[in-house]
């Protein structure tokens, strides 16, 4: 990555050399119709463009021709909002472990054929083309991904000490941006890494303790209800996660869930 960045950024002549690419993109008018892969060609793509900028170029081309532009989700374009997410050549967010917006065209070569598909999961139905409905994640959060705190004056910062190791691990889990790459990459279309990141993030901190048992049983029940698959600990999720959330969080979720069930916690129906 560093080497290729240097070669394209360091040599201006190199970055001016445009790439010609063949794109095969999933086109689907709406959720009710069947979609199919459609081939497009884009020319003179700069290696410094982000993947989404390359799609912007394609869409401008399509609009000029009077065609329907390709629908895809995006927002901050700086890798922190979790809105973008495409299956690029069979990998969630493409060949680099980052978000689609932070993937740059220098990861591809002139003449490459690139397949672009939406996240595929019955819990993430396609809205149009590459845009999917990820509200299932919102409902998992609603089921338990919160803490209850009294409002009013901010408490004394040192009133509740948190061990450094716990706060670091909680923060690592909290970096999950809910993009859905874990579901997209999982052979079972399981949302386990997402849910586990939330359970770990809140469960490691003192503020997360009062609801700890109810949180894990309700969030797992909700992810089952949404129609996600079960986890078989294959590890594709963690490898695709732009934030590198580890498989350790899944073990922690399992530990918390089995403990909570033994303690008598049951999901709300």
């Amino acid at each position, binding site marked *: 990555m560093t080497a290729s960045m240097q070669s394209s950024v360091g040599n201006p002549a190199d970055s001016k050399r445009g790439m010609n690419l063949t794109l095969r993109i999933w086109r689907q008018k709406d959720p009710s119709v069947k979609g199919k892969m459609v081939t497009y060609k884009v020319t003179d793509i700069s290696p410094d463009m982000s993947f989404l900028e390359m799609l912007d170029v394609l869409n401008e081309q399509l609009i000029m021709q009077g065609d329907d532009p390709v629908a895809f989700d995006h927002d901050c374009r700086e890798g922190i909002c979790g809105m973008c997410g495409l299956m690029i050549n069979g990998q969630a967010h493409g060949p680099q472990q980052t978000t689609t917006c932070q993937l740059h065209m220098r990861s591809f070569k002139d003449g490459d054929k690139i397949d672009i598909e939406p996240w595929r999961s019955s819990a993430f139905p396609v809205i149009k083309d590459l845009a999917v409905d990820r509200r299932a994640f919102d409902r998992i959060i609603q089921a338990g991904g919160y803490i209850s705190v009294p409002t009013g004056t901010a408490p004394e910062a040192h009133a509740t000490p948190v061990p450094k190791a716990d706060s670091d691990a909680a923060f690592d889990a909290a970096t999950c941006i809910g993009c859905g790459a874990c579901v997209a990459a999982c052979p079972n279309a399981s949302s386990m890494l997402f849910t586990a990141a939330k359970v770990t993030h809140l469960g490691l901190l003192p503020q997360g303790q009062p609801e700890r048992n109810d949180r894990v049983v309700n969030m797992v029940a909700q992810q089952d209800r949404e129609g996600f698959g079960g986890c*078989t600990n294959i590890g594709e999720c963690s490898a695709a996660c732009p934030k590198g959330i580890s498989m350790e969080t899944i073990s922690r979720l399992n530990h918390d869930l089995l403990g909570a069930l033994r303690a008598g916690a049951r999901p709300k129906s």
Partner: protein
Amino acid sequence: MTVTHAGRRTPKVAKTNSVVKKAVMAISGIVMVLYLIAHMVGNLKVFTGRESFNHYSEWIRTIGAPALPPQTALTIIRIALLVAVIAHFWAAVSLWRQAKRARPERYVTKKAVAQSYASRTMRWGGVIVLLFIVYHILDLTTGTVNPDGHDSTPYDRLVASFSNPFITAFYVISLVLLGMHLRHGIWSATQTLGQSNRRRERTVTAFALVFSVVLTAGFLIVPFSVLFGLVD
């Protein structure tokens, strides 16, 4: 997300918690692994000769005699194993179906980056191992499909089966599949039961590999010894 639409299908709700199913899978798996260790060690008795091996087989059937009726221990083990197999199979089929429902439309292009061959073959590998177990019981326990028939002694049945290269080949393939199944299974069970973490991960995967190799080798040594005439 502001887009709304009415086309969302309501997915069939999984009745039992998917993590609980995995825990059932893990615990039943552990029961079977414990049995496999005893089975593998017991098999090595074949190197002590015909009489000793047949005597060992007889002993298993008479543990606790005369205080206990014949086959008491064996019956308990068989019931425990049968329950474990059924539970393991039920959890696997149920999660398999859940996974299939979770992705009805497959990717046109999908590239795996992290999965091992062992983890990819858990389901079909498991089905083949199950079929193997059925054959294996009919071959060496009941003798129904054994070349020497059901009237022979355990030692003779073993030698008769493994003298046939095709039967031996089937055993070898099945045992290698079993070894791979265990390699991913041990790691997966550790995760499922919440006993893994970043520090232990490397140790767990290394243990799973070494354990599976040793167990598989321990089983394979018997058919190979018969095939190469070390046991006859």
